[in-house]
């Protein structure tokens, strides 16, 4: 894919490069600028990463040794529940939306997102949603403690936090749907002349598909939690067995949302990795078209595998076999992606700046998460793995060194474009090695704990699990502290440093590298032409 602009890149915005019209807090409250909104999304998700991370450290502190040392079991359950909700809806998803806001208009040559006012709204709903969610920690009965999956009947035992939880989930859903609509409309309508669908960068492709997933499943989640609300307050019995309802139906509805949600959190990561690896391999992405088809296949399959989250709930043999086969099938397109990335690196001329380091670690560690996912698909074995620490290890491998590593890689990759400065490469590499060592120290032992028989979501455990739990706790503190270095690197880079060129890296492909660094407040007032 070759891209050129009408104007010489360095002069593209000379005529009317005005900054934001408003200053101070008003600039951020009322902004309709995709770059400002993207920045706010990213800062918000970073803050939430630390809030959710602090909760994870409460969990790991209590699990450091057998016996209850620090918290009550109910508070432990609140931490487990809130950690998941905040990390999924507050850290990972907004980070991807932030990257989409910043990069999609720059990548497709659009002046802004298609619906800038809605863009502002979809961001500003989030602090409200998470304000409500975090406030539940201080209401009678405490925060939700029934797990992020909100399974009834347990979730109906939540105290005053219950309606707040439902309302917060609704707000997050509204925000996500608006963000998704915006992304789809932008991609489908505002691409630069000549940029056909199959010339779009992979990050744009993966986000287009992700946005459709969001629109398809967030309303399902909204429906499920609304039924919980009416069961609790309006006398319905959707999920109440005593009234003729069905608690398992909630699980089906929830996971019909929940499994596509898993891919909502990984497909944009695939997109980021597909941008970074070619740049630092100095070689075009291998199998671009098959990457697009593989992403679409994964998205389609995500709708027909949901019951693999509930094999132990009991279902007919044919149902179990169906969901086992479809789940195993996902390994095929995912495998294609991994092979394509490997083939991209093959015979390249690689250098290992921080974004590439995180991307390579993603390849290895996400694949480990994929292997444990394949193991979990085998239903008879799943009866042993299910709801054990093996599952905890699995989904943390795909979410932390998977999704979060991709986000961090993307931040390092585009940070010079955003700030106009190079980050400190030495510190970046130190951040990478600390993070990678500690993430494995934290999560790898959890495989062993699960296989040895430790259930998940327990605040205390039998003494035979003590050793690996201590290792995981040490790893978790190391991992958490290492992220402070990440914040410092970002702050340092925002404040100053070596000037970044427009291209930043060596001959990267994509329209975002044709605008100056930092990207001016308004870009592509004149659409570039893509050949």
């Amino acid at each position, binding site marked *: 894919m070759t891209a050129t602009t009408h104007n010489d890149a360095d002069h593209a915005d000379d005529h009317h490069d005005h900054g934001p019209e408003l200053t101070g807090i008003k600039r951020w409250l009322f902004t309709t600028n995709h770059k400002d909104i993207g920045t706010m999304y990213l800062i918000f998700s970073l803050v939430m990463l630390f809030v959710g991370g602090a909760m994870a450290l409460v969990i790991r502190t209590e699990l450091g040794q057998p016996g209850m040392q620090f918290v009550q079991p109910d508070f432990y359950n609140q931490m487990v529940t809130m950690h998941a909700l905040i990390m999924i809806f507050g850290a990972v998803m907004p980070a991807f939306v932030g990257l989409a806001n910043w990069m999609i208009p720059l990548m497709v040559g659009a002046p802004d997102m298609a619906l800038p006012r809605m863009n502002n709204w979809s961001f500003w709903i989030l602090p409200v949603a998470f304000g409500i969610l975090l406030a539940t920690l201080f209401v009678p009965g405490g925060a939700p403690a029934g797990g992020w999956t909100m399974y009834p009947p347990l979730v109906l035992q939540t105290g005053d936090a219950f309606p707040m939880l439902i309302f917060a989930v609704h707000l997050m859903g509204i925000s996500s749907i608006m963000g998704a609509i915006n992304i789809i409309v932008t991609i489908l309508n505002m691409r630069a002349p000549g940029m056909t669908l199959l010339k779009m960068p992979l990050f744009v492709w993966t986000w287009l598909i992700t946005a459709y997933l969001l629109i398809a499943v967030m309303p399902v989640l909204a429906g499920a939690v609304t039924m919980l609300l009416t069961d609790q307050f309006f006398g319905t019995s959707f999920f109440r067995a005593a009234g003729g309802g069905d608690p398992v139906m909630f699980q089906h509805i929830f996971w019909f949302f929940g499994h596509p949600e898993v891919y909502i959190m990984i497909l944009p990561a695939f997109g980021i990795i597909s941008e970074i690896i070619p740049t630092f391999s100095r070689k075009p992405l291998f199998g671009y078209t098959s990457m697009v088809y593989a992403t679409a296949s994964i998205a389609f399959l995500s709708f027909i595998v949901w019951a693999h989250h509930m094999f132990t709930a009991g279902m007919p043999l044919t149902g179990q076999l169906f969901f086992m086969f479809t789940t195993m099938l996902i390994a095929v397109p995912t495998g294609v992606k991994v092979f394509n990335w490997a083939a991209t690196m093959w015979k390249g001329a690689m250098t290992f700046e921080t974004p590439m380091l995180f991307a390579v670690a993603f390849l290895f560690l996400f694949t480990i998460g994929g292997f444990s996912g394949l193991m979990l698909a085998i239903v*008879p074995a799943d009866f042993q793995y299910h709801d054990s620490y093996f599952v905890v290890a699995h989904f943390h491998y795909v979410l932390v060194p998977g999704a979060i590593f991709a986000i961090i890689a993307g931040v390092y990759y585009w940070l010079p474009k955003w700030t106009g400065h190079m980050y400190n490469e030495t510190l970046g590499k130190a951040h990478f090695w600390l993070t990678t060592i500690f993430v494995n120290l934290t999560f790898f032992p959890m495989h062993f704990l699960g296989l040895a028989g430790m259930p998940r979501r327990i605040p205390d455990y039998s003494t035979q699990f003590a050793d690996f739990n201590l290792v995981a706790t040490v790893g978790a503190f190391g991992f958490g502290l290492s992220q402070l270095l990440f914040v410092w690197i970002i702050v340092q880079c925002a404040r100053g440093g070596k000037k970044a060129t427009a291209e930043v890296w060596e001959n990267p492909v994509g329209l975002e590298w044709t605008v100056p660094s930092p990207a001016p407040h308004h870009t592509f007032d004149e659409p570039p032409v893509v050949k």
Partner: protein
Amino acid sequence: MTRRIAAALIALLPTGAAHADWELNMREGVTAISREVYGLHMLIFWVCCAIAVFVFGWMIVALVLHRKSRGVEAAQFSHSTKAEIIWTLIPAVILVAMAVPAAKTMIAIEDDRNPDLTIKATAYQWKWQYEYLDEGVSFYSTLARTSNDARRTGSGIDPESVENYLLEVDNHVVVPVNAKVRVLLTSNDVLHAWWMPDFAIKKDAIPGYINQVWFRAEEPGIYRGQCAELCGQDHGFMPIVVEVLEQDAYDARLAAMKAEFGTDTPRLANND
């Protein structure tokens, strides 16, 4: 008392693995099904290892050889239909090869015909109630007092000093060896799950539903499991203990249990 000592001795013999620290792998368990499940687990594990050697090996070779610092020139190829077809088809074949034995085991697991003994397990927050449906025996099974005292936040009791910490109950489920035991699962309040790793059984206990599982334990011994579905504050404190006895020992125990628990309405155990 003698019963307790005998039980403790039996516990030491066959299932010492339950107490091994730094345990890395799944237990094989003591039923034909659990061994089959273990076999599947190891099979898929080795398949994953083989794929890992190939994929990671390929990437590592690239990372070592194809780096700019070695002065290489980047090739510019960007697709190969042949390669794409190969690495779509080979994984698909591997998956089919995995799916066949897994489906066979599934079918064996679902064959719940002709049980020798049926026990209904009802889950409560936070204990289990067991009913021997044909024997008129019914009792509750709750966390042992020793563990329960030690697990209070700030109890000051060292869990290491408690035998079978969090994995001991007041009343064991007792079953005969080599008998096909069917367990019917339901719940009186929220979701719970009955997990017995040595039998490769995990199934949810759901209000309004009766789920069923079965096992045929082939070695006498005491086997320990836990609730595996988040069920509220004491989710971590409602273990499951199944004691597998030789037939005559089982008959004697059943008679004793009938004397102790043989009422139509189950009563709460006095937790001693």
